[in-house]
C-alpha cells in the first residue's frame, strides 16, 4: 500500500539529485525489483531480524526504531499512568458526590476535554505555557545547547521540564476519557445488591465506593488500559509533532513523507506488536484483578 502512494523515495531530496544517483540508490535499496520480490526479501530479512536500511535517516531501521521507541514509551508510559491516576480519581470523585454541583462541574469539564481534538489541545497548551507564560520549553526532549554540560540532577530536571507539556496534553486528553469510563463503570456497580448490603451494614459512603465498588469496576478499566495502549500510540503521533518529540510518531510521519518504505513498514509492524501487547497485558491484568478468572 505504501508503494501506491505517488512519489519517489528519493524525490524528497530535491530535484538536484541526478537521475544517475537516483537510479543508483534505487538499485542499492532494491526498489528496482518487482514488488513481490521486494516483499519476499523483506519478509525473509525480518525473519532474520533485519529490518532494512532507512535512506532518509541513513541508518539501519532497527537502529532508528531502537532510538525512537524508548522515547515514545517514556511519553506514553508516563501519560498512561497519570491518565489513569487522574481519570480514576475523577471518576471516583464524581461517583461519591453524584448529584452535587461539584460532580456536575467535573462532568462538564471531562466532556469538554474529551471532545477537544488532541492537536488543538496540544497547540493551546504550547501557546499558554511556552509562549504566553514561558515556563516550559517549546519542544524537544532536552536542551540541545546545555544538556551535555549539566550535572545529573540538572539533566534529570531538564528532561522532566521537557516532558511536562506533552504529558499534560496527553493526560488531559485521555484522562477525561478514563474518568468518564470509570464513572460509567461505577454507575453500573453501585446499584448492585452487595453494595446495598454493605450500606445497610453501616459502611461509610467513601469506603463503599473506594473499597467495595471500585474493585468490581476495575475490570472495564483494565479493558480500557489494553485499548488505550495502542490508542495512545496514535495520539502521540500528533503530540510528538507539536512538541518536536523525536519518538515513533515523528519517525513515522517523516518516513511516510520521505517514502522511506522499510521504515514505514517496520513502524506499522511495531504498531501491530503494541496492539497485541496491549491485549496481552489486559488479559494478564484480568487474571490478577479477578480471582474467578484465575480459578478458571
Amino acid at each position, binding site marked *: 500500500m505504501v508503494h501506491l502512494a505517488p*512519489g519517489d523515495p528519493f524525490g524528497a531530496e530535491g530535484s538536484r539529485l*541526478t537521475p544517475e*544517483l537516483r537510479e543508483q540508490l534505487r538499485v542499492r535499496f532494491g526498489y528496482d525489483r518487482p514488488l513481490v520480490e521486494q516483499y519476499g526479501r523483506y519478509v525473509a530479512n525480518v525473519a532474520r531480524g533485519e529490518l532494512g536500511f532507512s535512506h532518509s535517516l541513513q541508518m539501519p531501521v532497527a537502529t532508528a526504531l531502537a532510538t525512537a521507541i524508548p522515547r515514545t514509551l517514556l511519553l506514553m508510559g508516563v501519560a498512561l499512568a497519570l491518565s489513569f491516576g487522574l481519570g480514576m480519581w475523577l471518576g471516583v470523585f464524581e461517583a461519591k458526590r453524584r448529584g452535587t454541583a461539584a460532580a456536575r462541574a467535573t462532568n462538564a469539564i471531562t466532556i469538554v476535554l474529551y471532545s477537544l481534538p488532541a492537536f488543538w489541545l496540544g497547540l493551546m497548551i504550547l501557546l499558554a505555557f*511556552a509562549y504566553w507564560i514561558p515556563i516550559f520549553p517549546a*519542544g524537544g526532549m532536552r536542551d540541545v545547547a546545555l544538556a*551535555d554540560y549539566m550535572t545529573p540532577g540538572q539533566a534529570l530536571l531538564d528532561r522532566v521540564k521537557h516532558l511536562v507539556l506533552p504529558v499534560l496534553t496527553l493526560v488531559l486528553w485521555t484522562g477525561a476519557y478514563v474518568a468518564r469510563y470509570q464513572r460509567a463503570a461505577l454507575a453500573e456497580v453501585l446499584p448492585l445488591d452487595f453494595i446495598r448490603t454493605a450500606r445497610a451494614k453501616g459502611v461509610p459512603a467513601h469506603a463503599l465506593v473506594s473499597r467495595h465498588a471500585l474493585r468490581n469496576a476495575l475490570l472495564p478499566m483494565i479493558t480500557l488500559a489494553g485499548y488505550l495502549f495502542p490508542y495512545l500510540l496514535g495520539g502521540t503521533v500528533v503530540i510528538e*509533532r507539536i*512538541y518536536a518529540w523525536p519518538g515513533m510518531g515523528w519517525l513515522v510521519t517523516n518516513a511516510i513523507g520521505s517514502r522511506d518504505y522499510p521504515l514505514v513498514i517496520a513502524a506499522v509492524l511495531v504498531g501491530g506488536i503494541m496492539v497485541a501487547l496491549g491485549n496481552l497485558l489486559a488479559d494478564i491484568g484480568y487474571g490478577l484483578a479477578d480471582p474467578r478468572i484465575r480459578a478458571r
Partner: protein
Amino acid sequence: MTATLAAGCTDRSTGDGGDPGGTVIIAVPGTFTPALPIYSVTATTVNITSQVYDRLATAPENLSSFGDAGFEPRLARSWTWAPDSMSIAFHVNPDARWHDGRPVRASDVKFSFDVARDPRSGSNIAPLITNIDSISVRDSLTAVAHFKSRSPEQFYDLVYQLYIVPEHVLGGVARDQLTTADASKLLVGSGRFRLARFEPGARLELVADTANYRGRAKLDRVIFTVAADGGAAVAQILSGQADVFEFIPPDLVARLDSNSPARAVPFPGLAYAYLGMNQRAQRGSGPHPLFGDRAVRLAVSMALDREAMLRNVFDTLGVLGVGPYARRLADSAVTIPPFDRARATALLDSAGWRAGPNGVRAKGGRALAFSVMYPTSSKPRERYAVLIQEQLRSIGARVDLTAVDFPTFQRRQEAGEFDAALISANPDANLGGARQYWTAGGMARGGQNFVKYNNPRFDALLDSAVASFDGARRRDQTRRAWQMLVDDAPGVWLYDLLFMNAVHRRIRTTDLRADGWWAGLADWTIPADERIDRDRVGLRPAQP
C-alpha cells in the same frame, strides 16, 4: 506589517561584537542528515557543508560569474592563468589543515574533482563541471585545472561548484559507496567549523575550529536542531529556545514585533515562482492541446493581475516577478506581457475560443479547462492557485486546482504530468544555470525545464551569450534571449521568493548573501553583555 518589519529590523548587521563566543541554534523543520558536498541538495545540508568544507575561492558579493574578478581566496591562496586560458594553476594555502590536523594538499583538489565527476559516485554537480577536463598535481601545493574550452564562466564553474574533500579520509571508500559510507559522515573538512556531534532526528552540532587557517569562527558553536515542522520551529523561535529559523512565512513576520525575542532579517535570493504552462501533452509527445498554442499562453499571462495577487498574498512584503529570473539579476529592458484583460479576451476570440452557455470557452469541442497543480507545503502557492482560478474565470477559462504533497508535486513536475503548475525555481546566478531551466537540454531527466519550452533560436542565443567574452555583446545577446522567451509566454512570472530569517535579537549577523544566507555565519557575533546561558558554555568538552 511593514511597520513591524521596520521595527524588528534594527541595524544589527555587520557583526563585530568583540570577543568570540556564543551559541547559535538553528531550528530546522523536518529531518536532515550530514552529507558530502557532492550530495548536499537541501538548504540545511548545503548550509552544514559550507561551514565544514571550503572551496578554492569564493564568489563575489554580486555573484558575477564572468572571469575571476572579485573572487576571494579560500583554500587556494592565489591562482595563475595560463596564457591561453586553457588551464589555471591553484596554489594551495600552506597553512590550511583538515580538522584532523593533516595538511591540505594539491592531491586533495585532484581527488575532489575526480570524485565529483565520477559517474559511480552519482555526484549532483557532475553536469555542472563538464568543461573541466582534468586536474593535475604539479607539486604538493599546486593543482592545475585543465579546461576543454575557454569560456567566461570557466573559473566560476570550477571554483563555485567544487568543495574540496580529504583524500586521506575518503580515498579508500569505493565511489559507489560514498553516499552511505561511515567515513562520509565524519565530515572531516577544512572549514571554520568542524563537526562535534550528530544525533539523528535531534541535532547536529558544529564547533569552531580554533586552529583554522582563516582564523577561528567568532561563534563557539552552531547547533542545528530538528523541529517537527514549521509550526514547531516557530514555537521554538518565539519562546527563545532557538535562535534562527530560515525562510519564515510572511504571516510570521507580523508576530516578530518589538516584544518578540527574534527579529525578521530579510535577504536577497535568486528564487522566483511562476505559473508554468506545460507545452507538451501529458500523454504522447505532441503539443499540449491548450498550452501548445502561444495565443492561449499569452492570453492567460495577460488575464492575471499579478500585482493584485501579490498584494493579496504577501501584503507589502512581496516582490513582483519580472521574468524568468530574480529581480536582482533582471534586465530592465526586457518587458513582460502587461495585465490587460481586454487584450486577453481578444486574443482568445481571434484564436477561435468561443464562450459557451456555461461561460466556459470552447474550440472544436474542447473546453478551455485545465488544472493548476501546487504543493500543499507552500501556503503562498496555495493562495495564488485560488486567486488564479478566480481571475481566469473572467476570461472564460475553467481552472481546477490539484493540491499534492511535495514529493508527488516533484514527481509529476519532472514527469510532465500536469497542465499548469505553480513552480518555484532557484537557479544559480550564472547564465549557464539558466540553461537547465529553459533550453532543450533542460528537458532531459534531471533538468528543470518542466514546461518543455523548446525554442532553438533561444537556445542558440543563450549559448552564444554564455560563450561570449565581450561583455557588451554578451549583455545584448542575453537580453534578446530573455525577451524572446518572455514573448513566448511559457509562464506567468508571479513573484520573487522573498527570503526572511527570524534571528534572535542578541545576534549580530553579517550581510546575508543571495546564494546562501549562511555564508557569513562564522563571522556572526554575540556581544558579551547580551549573552545568555547557552552562549557561556564555550568550547569546553561535554560531561561524560
